[in-house]
């Protein structure tokens, strides 16, 4: 099956800054695809290139098997998006906003369908209220309704839970799961709330400084039974060399300035510790990280990861 999104060697330079650097990834149909990275990692720039708001310096984007530059309108007719904040016309009502963006998407949507969309995001009762009277959460939900109003196959959401309270986050999470599981939509979602992504994403990519760090299915990248271990020793460089020549080599993810990263199954921890002792390695600390957030931070929080396995 052809991927819905196929990004190849995508690069964007802003004067001297390389915001996105030779990025390649693909999103399969029906997936919820998490797009992770720290602030300034290049997520929003990439998303804006996917939506033709920013022109790439080089590289290629194909969506639905079509070249984005050549078939822009044809592609965008089937894409719904929110970029950063769901900014809408505050002096218009929710219904008027929805009507406008439906018309701009090139579809004629009946009043009933518009109301159904608002009902889906829980705003039917406030359909005739001006957006300036809405809370942040309501605006976010209305933003999602505008992204969905033309029934797109692909939905791109940039930080959809920004500024929401816990209930609002849970509502958006349920909506995303509904869109994916019940309506079979493909979703590309960037978020800094990694615990949320853990709950909804099928696959993900982590980027750092515009470059891909890791990409794959969440259950393969992050098996709940697996863990990333931060290992500090008396001599990290010597330990790294020793590990490379031992049967622990398969666990080594990389080396940082201040520690080594090992990725292993929790059941393997005792055996690995025993092996380290037998190798006469002076262990200062052995810290096991469990969540996606820990995994994400272990890959991106420190700038000097030297080697990484995909």
């Amino acid at each position, binding site marked *: 099956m052809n991927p819905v999104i196929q990004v190849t060697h995508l690069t964007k330079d802003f004067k001297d800054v390389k915001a996105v650097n030779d990025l390649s990834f693909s999103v399969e149909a029906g997936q919820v695809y998490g797009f992770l990275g720290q602030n300034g990692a290049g997520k929003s720039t990439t998303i804006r290139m996917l939506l033709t708001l920013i022109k790439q310096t080089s590289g290629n984007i194909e969506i639905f098997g079509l070249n984005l530059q050549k078939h*822009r309108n044809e592609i965008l007719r089937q894409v719904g998006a929110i*970029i*950063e904040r769901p900014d809408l016309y505050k*002096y218009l009502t929710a219904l008027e906003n929805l009507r406008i963006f439906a018309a701009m998407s090139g579809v004629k949507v009946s009043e009933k369908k518009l109301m159904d969309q608002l009902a889906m995001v829980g705003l039917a009762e406030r359909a005739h209220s001006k957006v300036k009277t809405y809370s942040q959460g309501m605006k976010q939900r209305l933003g999602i309704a505008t992204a969905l109003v033309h029934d797109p196959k692909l939905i791109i959401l940039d930080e959809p839970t920004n500024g929401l309270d816990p209930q609002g986050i849970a509502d958006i999470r349920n909506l995303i799961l509904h869109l994916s599981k019940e309506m079979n939509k493909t979703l590309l979602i960037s978020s800094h709330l990694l615990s949320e992504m853990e709950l909804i994403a099928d696959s993900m990519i982590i980027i750092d400084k515009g470059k891909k760090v890791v990409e794959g299915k969440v259950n393969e990248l992050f098996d709940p039974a697996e863990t990333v271990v931060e290992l500090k020793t008396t001599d990290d460089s010597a330990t790294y060399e020793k590990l490379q020549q031992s049967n622990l080599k398969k666990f080594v993810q990389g080396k940082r300035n201040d520690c080594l990263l090992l990725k292993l199954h929790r059941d393997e921890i005792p055996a690995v510790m025993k092996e380290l002792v037998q190798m006469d390695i002076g262990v200062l600390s052995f810290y096991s990280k469990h969540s996606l957030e820990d995994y994400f931070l272990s890959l991106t929080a420190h700038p000097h990861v030297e080697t990484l396995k995909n």
Partner: protein
Amino acid sequence: MWKLLKIELFKIFKRPRTYIAFGAVAAIVFLFQIGLKFDGKSYLDLILNNVSDSFEVSDDFKSRLLNGYFICFAILNILLIQMPLLVALIAGDAIAGEANMGTLRLSLTKPISRTEYMLVKFMASVIYTLILLLWLAVLALFGSMLIFGTNTLVVFRSEGIEMMNSFDVLWRYVAAFGYAAVALTTVSALAFLLSVFAENSIGPIIATMSIVIVLTILSEFNIPIYDKTVKPYLFTTHMVAWKGFFYVQADADNKTIDGTIQNLPAILRSMGILIAYIIGFVGTAIWIFKRKDILT
């Protein structure tokens, strides 16, 4: 494109600020009309003081002078200088306002080309300008005709006076308002161009007004070297050419020839220059916008 244009007009006329210009025009026109209704004689004396050296003014002439056509001409003389500010309020907001609200990025993710988007935005601001002018025409021309009646139109110039029979005036106003529409569209196009560079509408509005004011002052400079080198190329020089519709030809006995215009080619040339400016401003705006990364 019609569907998009309807959306733009809907958005413009749903905003309360749109009606500021209509309110301002109405206020100025009404204040002017009320003032002249109660103290028109003093106003006429003031004007006639300046020209009474050149010819004798009879009481009969005075009584015929203060009519709807004359008052409309006086209002246009004042208002068409201020109207660019009102026009810039909308055109300067066209792109910058969307960027400021954050709706620009959402709009540009829709299957509409940027050229189409820009053309629709500009067309909407032109329609707004036309409606504003129509509003001015209704109040200043038809309102004044209703309040003061119609008679011979007398236009005072430094070279002398122009007189037009009442039956020969209305079509001139139609032409003058048509010309004013082109002149104001030029300002609109300038504000629209500046709007592409900004992320809030205050900048383009102020910049447009500053440019119009500076160029208008330059157009009025009485320095001979500028007459052929600078003035002919300033759009502000050509914005006031609507007055040419009220300058009439005279026969050998110095009697006005009905239905004539003194220098139609000059008016058409000025209009051509304004249209060239409009095309230049809008074309540049589209060219820049098509290449612009949307980062707001």
